[in-house]
Every structure is written in structure tokens, then in C-alpha cells.
């Protein structure tokens, strides 16, 4: 497991001295574990990387871990937009919140976020055979969660102490594969016609529990406390979710 490889401080790179291109060249040159300090908006950090653990202090820029292919990333604060864009494998752990379009077209690996996610988390996530991406959002999500979702599993825990609904408007719009679990009875959440939303069964929870256990370990959270709540399972309603949407088929 990637975390076992992690030895913080092995190599330290001060991001403030470089533009994003040079910074990424430096990270690749290290080839293994490294800590990036003073991060401030540098884009594409660790893009496409297959190994090593990249530990980030500061605020990384957009498309963090894009096309990630097995490496591990930890961010101690917030991350911006398009975290894990088209990620293939590996893991991204965010201790703060993330911006919009996290896990865009992600097709493998894990993204764990302690805080909230912006709009369109998990947009067009997909899966194929053994490749099944996992995204867990600890807080709440903006609108269009799982838009066009085609595969993978999205779990939202809603662990923030405010009155907002666990997810904002239009969750699962155009969803046609994969599954979402929301730690809530989802009272007041309006789902589109192309999905079904119902309380998760014990059978459903087997998978959810193993993911949440792993998540809780990373953030030092109490698994039992988190599981002691209703979960709503959201899945596509039919094999042809676009039926009658564009043409009379």
C-alpha cells in the first residue's frame, strides 16, 4: 500500500521557486517520496505519476494528480478544481476541502476528502472490469454530484456541522452506471428520473463499510460512529437512461 512507502521529508521541494512545469520536472526527477512546501496554485502536480508519495503543504493548483497512475498524494490543506482528473490508479488524500469537478472521468484509484466538495464531484466517473474508482467526501457536496456517472462508487458522509443538505441540486443527472451512497435519509433532496434512491440494505453496506473503514483510518475517525446513520443508495434506474430524452426510441 502506498502509505507504507511514505517517509515524509525524504526530499523537500520549495514550490515557490518554480513555475508548474519546472516543479513537475523536479518531482519526476525525485521519482519517489517527496514533500512539496510553499505550494500556491501550481497546476498538474504529479500528473501521470506511477510511484512515490507526494506530500503537499500549501494550496496546490488545478488538476492535481491528473492522469495519476499509481502514485499517492496527500494534501494538508485545501485543493482547487479538477483533482484527479482522468486518474487511473493510486490515491489522493485531501485533509481540507476541494473545488469543482473532482475526479472528472476518473477510472481507477481512490480520492478521499475530509472536507466538502464543490460542484460536479465524480462527473463521468467510469469503471471497467477490475478498475473501479472510489471517491469519499467527508463533508457535503455542491450541485451535480455524480453527473453522467458511468461507473465507480461515490460516498458522501456529510460530516460538517451546518444546516445544508448533504448534497445540493441535481445529483445524479445523466447517471447511467456506478453507485452513490449518501449518509443521510436524503429528505428534501430531489433526484432526477433516471436514478433510483432508496435506503441502503445490509448487503449494500458490506461494500460501503470496507471503504469507510479505510477512509476513517486515514483521517483518524471513528468508524462505528459514522456508520451509525442511515445511508441512501443512488443508482441508475435503467440500462437506457436516455430513453425518450433526445429521440423517440
Amino acid at each position, binding site marked *: 500500500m502506498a502509505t507504507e512507502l511514505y517517509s515524509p521529508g525524504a526530499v523537500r521541494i520549495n514550490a515557490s521557486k518554480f513555475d508548474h512545469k519546472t516543479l513537475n520536472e523536479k518531482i519526476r526527477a525525485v521519482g519517489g517520496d517527496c514533500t512539496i512546501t510553499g505550494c*500556491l*496554485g501550481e497546476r498538474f502536480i504529479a500528473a501521470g505519476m506511477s510511484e512515490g508519495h507526494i506530500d503537499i503543504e500549501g494550496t496546490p493548483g488545478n488538476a492535481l494528480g491528473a492522469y495519476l497512475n499509481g502514485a499517492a498524494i496527500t494534501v494538508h490543506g*485545501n485543493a*482547487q478544481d479538477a483533482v484527479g482528473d482522468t486518474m487511473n490508479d493510486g490515491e489522493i488524500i485531501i485533509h481540507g476541502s476541494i*473545488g469543482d469537478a473532482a475526479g472528472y472521468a476518473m477510472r481507477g484509484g481512490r480520492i478521499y476528502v475530509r472536507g466538502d466538495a464543490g*460542484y460536479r464531484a465524480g462527473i463521468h466517473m467510469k469503471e471497467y472490469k477490475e478498475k473501479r474508482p472510489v471517491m469519499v467526501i467527508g463533508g457535503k457536496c455542491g450541485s451535480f454530484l455524480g453527473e453522467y456517472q458511468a461507473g465507480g462508487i461515490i460516498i458522501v458522509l456529510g460530516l460538517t456541522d451546518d444546516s445544508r443538505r448533504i448534497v445540493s441540486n441535481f445529483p445524479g443527472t445523466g447517471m447511467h452506471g456506478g453507485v452513490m451512497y449518501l449518509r443521510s435519509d436524503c429528505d428534501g433532496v430531489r433526484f432526477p428520473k433516471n436514478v433510483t434512491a432508496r435506503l441502503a440494505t445490509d448487503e449494500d453496506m458490506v461494500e460501503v463499510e470496507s471503504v469507510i473503514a479505510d477512509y476513517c483510518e486515514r483521517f483518524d475517525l471513528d468508524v462505528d460512529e459514522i456508520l451509525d446513520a442511515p445511508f441512501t443508495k443512488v443508482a441508475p434506474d435503467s440500462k437506457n437512461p436516455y430513453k425518450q430524452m433526445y429521440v423517440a426510441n
Partner: protein
Amino acid sequence: MQKEGQIRIPSGCAISAVISKSGKRMSGEKIVSSMVPVHDRSNGLGGGFAAYGIYPEHRDFYALHVFFDDDVCRADCENYLRERFEIVDAEVLPTRTMREITDEPVIWRYFVYPRRTRLRALQVDEREYVVRVVMKINSTLKGAYVFSSGKNMGVFKAVGYPEDVGRYYRLEEYEGYSWTAHGRYPTNTPGWWGGAHPFALLDYSIVHNGEISSYDANRRFIEMFGYRCTLQTDTEVITYIIDYLVRRQGMTYEEAAHVIAAPFWDTISHREPEERERLTYLRTVFSSLLVTGPFSIVLGFEGGLMALNDRLKLRSMVTGHSEDGDRVYIASEEASIRKMDEDATGIYAPAGGEPVIVKVKEGRRAAVGEY
């Protein structure tokens, strides 16, 4: 070469802003630095800033910032201005000679007030009068373009990267209670000084990241009311829409936001009855001013700022504030906020169509820009 307004190329940008709620003035240094982490969001074809509270010694006069092709155009335009305004002060806008900024137009600043006889003859109020003169100059006087026309505020913009533009205009020498910034990546037009953001009319200024698909529909409607869109850029039309809704229709900024980024009918149908009725009214009566396509904007006005995203939230925008709560920050990326204030807190991403309005504290308004 064809100038902006004569050619259209079908694109991204960076915006940021800061305001002190107590009206404390700050130099332009921080806002200029906020554009450094988002350098790659623009392509060197435009950068600009709006600053509020910077001309306290001339607070009663309209500050006109004008680009001229040359001094002949300037002489023509000054004659035109002199017939319509008392010119209290006229000077070359101070700039710094820099390798990064080239093809400079002639740039002047005038402090003016309307000639009373003209104003009485036209039977319009002062602000309407100023708008008419600005529209007339920008649409008919060749080689002259008024890019800033408010009181106690100013727009500074150019072709170049925003951090260079800030240095070019010596913004560290100005002090304002509120600042907005823009880095441009022009998509539909070639990028001329006049087309850089902010776009301003009176004290309303707009910086914008996005691409408005309703531009022509909005333009056709707004031109019925005397506005002239001369540059084919979508941001210009938003500025005029704000002027029309707020100044002429007397709407609140929030109401204007609900016209521009009206919620979906489906969303409206689930609101409380009174709210539903209000939103339905705004969306129905001003349907031609619904702005569609991706955008995030910051509107600057006397005594405040408003941030707004398109209702689908197709562009990024976050807000935050200083630890003591006095300064509020708005930016395309959190990195810009952290550049201005590394201890900034309360990072928040407003929802699509949710206006964030920040005003200088009630009762402090009169004191804004005190020196």
C-alpha cells in the same frame, strides 16, 4: 490590422478582488500580487484593475480615464468634452516605461463635472448625462475611448499580463478601500487596450471570467435603451445590464443577480410562495437579460462588491476573509486569496447564481476614501 470590435475570434481568464468592510484604504500592491499564482490563466493579451476610493481629493468629480490613438484625436475629444463638462483637472495618467508593455496609446485622466446649462436643457440627471457622453464618445469619436467614468474610482487596463499592467500603472502608489483584478485570455476578439477588463460605466465595473452565449440576445435588448456595444466582447454588455437594472430600474444588486443568473424554473417552482413569485416576476419581465453560458464575475460599485457565478457554475470562484473579518477576498482560485493573505480563512465556494454582496459598513459610506 483590424482592431477589437472589427473582428471576432471565438475562450478563460482570472479574476480577484479585495474589499475592506470598514473602508480602510490599501495600496494596489496586494491585488497586483494576487494575479501572480494565476499567471497561466491569461495569455498576455489583457490585464486590468478597478480601484475604489482612490481619488478622495477629487471625490465630487467624475474621473474620466481615456485612451487616444494620438494627440490629434485627443484634441478633438477635449473639444467635445469641454463643451459638455467643466474640466477641473487634466493630466497624463502616470505610467512606468516597461519592456513588457508595448504599443501604448496616449492615456489621459480628466476630473470633470457636467455643465449645468446643458444638464438643464437635456432634463436628465447628472449620471444619465455622463453615460450619454461616454456612449457618444466611444461609439462616434474616432481614436478616443473612455474606459473609466466613475467618481472616486478608476480603471487601469492594458494589453499585457496583469502583474505587469499593475506595475505599468504604478498601482502601488494608489490607495483604495476596494480593488478588483483581471487577467485576460481573449477568445472572441484579438485583444486591444480598450477590450481589457474591467469594463466600467460610472462607478460600475465588471471583471469577468467566462464566455457568454447570450451576448447577442442581451446586446439587442440593451441597445434599445441607448447603450452602444462597441467592442463585441461579452463583458461590456454585462456592465451595461448592471447599469440598466440597478441605476435605471432601481433594483437591488441581489435582484439584478436574479435577473442575470436566474434560477431554473424547476428550482423556482420549489421555493416558498413569496420568493417564487418574486423570482418568476424577475425572470419573466427581464427574460432578455438572462445571461447564459459560463461566467464568474465581480462587480465593483461605490461602497461595495458583488461576486456572481452562472447558475450552472461552469467557472470557479471562491471567497474568504481576513482573520479579523475586515477584508473580504474573492478569486478564481484559492491560491490568489492566499497570495494576498496567507492567513485568510472562511474559504467558501458560492453556489451557481448565488450572489455574494459585500458592502462597506453602513454609516461608514460617507467616510469612504477619507484622507
